[in-house]
């Protein structure tokens, strides 16, 4: 199914409809998207346009109502819940909009979390997590708990947790949304470095043009479809 060499993500004619009681919300309609390996893609669009929904579909957190999603040769919308969970653990790094760190675990333990789903030994898990924290520049905060970290630091712990399994695809939902300019820039620097130096394919949802400028390509979501320029 996957198109040309080097194509990582392919969404084909994807619809997403949410049902809320008797009401149907058509969020995505006939959406097509191709993301080549190694791309840093920014997704923009007005609030409520379905950016998070699209990111969730790519990350296998949700299923399309219609259409297919193919990621490096795997048609993920056809996987069972259990296999999809295993697929996520292996291939996707998620940076959540609201951090979603586990409050009772230290930064180190939060980063180790996805490794519990691998066959790595305790010592290896520790080493991998330390490396990831090192990459995001937070080795000195390893034993801190989330509530004692600043927003930017929590965001970076979240990124460390997303990259610790060395995923194929890194998905970030508004990673700079609630950070000040300086902290936001640090996060963007980090994502850019991960993209350039480690070759990570990144999809970043943002409504900040300044952030989107760091990406290699920007797409706009509007009325359930993607376009190259914002609709006015």
């Amino acid at each position: 199914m996957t198109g040309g060499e080097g194509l990582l993500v392919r969404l084909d004619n994807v619809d997403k409809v949410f049902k809320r009681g008797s009401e149907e919300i058509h969020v995505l309609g006939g959406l097509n998207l191709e993301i080549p390996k190694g791309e840093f893609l920014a997704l923009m669009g007005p609030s409520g346009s379905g950016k998070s929904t699209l990111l969730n579909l790519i990350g296998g957190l949700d299923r399309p109502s219609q259409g297919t999603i193919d990621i490096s040769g795997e048609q993920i919308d056809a996987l069972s819940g259990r296999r999809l969970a295993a697929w996520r653990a292996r291939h996707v790094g998620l940076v959540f909009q609201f951090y979603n760190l586990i409050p009772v675990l230290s930064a180190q333990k939060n980063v180790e979390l996805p490794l519990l789903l691998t066959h790595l030994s305790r010592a290896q898990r520790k080493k991998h997590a330390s490396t990831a924290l090192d990459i995001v520049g937070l080795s000195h905060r390893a034993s801190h708990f989330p509530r004692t970290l600043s927003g930017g630091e929590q965001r970076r712990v979240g990124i460390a947790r997303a990259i610790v399994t060395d995923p194929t695809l890194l998905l970030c939902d508004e990673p700079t949304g609630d950070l000040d300019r300086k902290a936001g820039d640090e996060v963007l620097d980090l994502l850019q470095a991960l993209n350039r130096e480690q070759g990570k394919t990144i999809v970043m949802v943002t409504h900040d043009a300044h952030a989107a400028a760091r990406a290699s390509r920007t797409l706009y979501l509007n009325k359930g479809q993607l376009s190259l320029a914002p609709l006015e």
Partner: protein
Amino acid sequence: MAGPINWLSQVASVTQFNFLTLPQRKGASAAAIFGIAGVVAVMVAVLSIAEGIMQTMDNSASPENVIVMRSGANSEMMSILMGDDVRIISEGPGLARDETGAIASPELFVVINLPMRSTGTDANVPLRGVGREAMKVRQQFSIVDGRMFQWGLHEVIVGVGAQYQFSGLEIGSSITVGQEQWPVVGVFHVGGGLAETEVWVDSAVLQPVYRRGNSFQVVYAKLESEDSFQEYKDALTSDPRLNVKPMRESDYYASQSEMLYKLITGLGTLIALIMGFGAVFGALNTMYTAVSSRTREIATLRALGFNAGPVVISVLMESLLLAFIGGVIGAGLAWWVFDGFRAATLNFASFSQVAFAFNVSLPLLVRGIVFAMIIGLIGGLFPAVRSVRQPISTALREL
């Protein structure tokens, strides 16, 4: 890819996170624990009454003892045996013997009224007329205070249970029988058995007071061995001169206590079920709160690739842990407060009081804890399932 080991380690780690968050939910968790503890304490306490009565009846019975009453009599009080009957009964085959002959004790059984210590109101106390053989049949008999009554005198001895339960049975005081005052001269013990709730007197003294001539009501006899019962029974029941019903002592006491045991056990179970129903709702509420406060955390774990199964199980584990703690506290409380606690109840068969001690036995403690775990399981199941029923993307949107 995700083998059983991986699955188990998921259960272990998710459960661990749950337990780490427990301190944040101290209040609700403690409420659930104590709710369950209360249910278990009440249940164990009530059932220990039934166990205690059973034990008293058990202690009363010796496997080698046989009790002979007139056929058709359901209790000693309703039986009558004439002097000739008693002689034939004592000559039956298979009885143990000593230098004075077969070990068979003809006895009288009447009830008198005495005020209970607890309420001050009068209740029935068995007054048993015995001969020298009575102590041979009941080998655990011993005088623990004062002395034995003298044969032929109007003196009585009282069982420890009777003395505990009724006032006016101290050594030196006297009881009213007919128009007379009979002094209490000693306190006896019979290994925790039913006879301890009785007052004993020489049967030869009691007969004329109740105008019994030389008749008795019951014969307690000791068999050569447990196995000679059938031979003895057959001989007595086939004897045309007799119209009697020999029973093993254990069967007799079992028949006496059966109704009471069933009633109390039934009542205890009913109370436990009603209270347990309430505790299930307490646990449900606690676990719903626990789960909903962690909706996003659970969704995060699932987004990272944790399976639904381990999440469900870990919520159940938490609920079961709370229930287990509650069960242990409740059972422990019941044991601490009630084990050995003495009380009395009416023996329906003879309408006299039976003293017994609450018996919080190990199987009962285990039953209490198992009951707690069932409450925890039911209380945790629905919240656990609910915690993963929501789609991840929806749960992640909740704040």
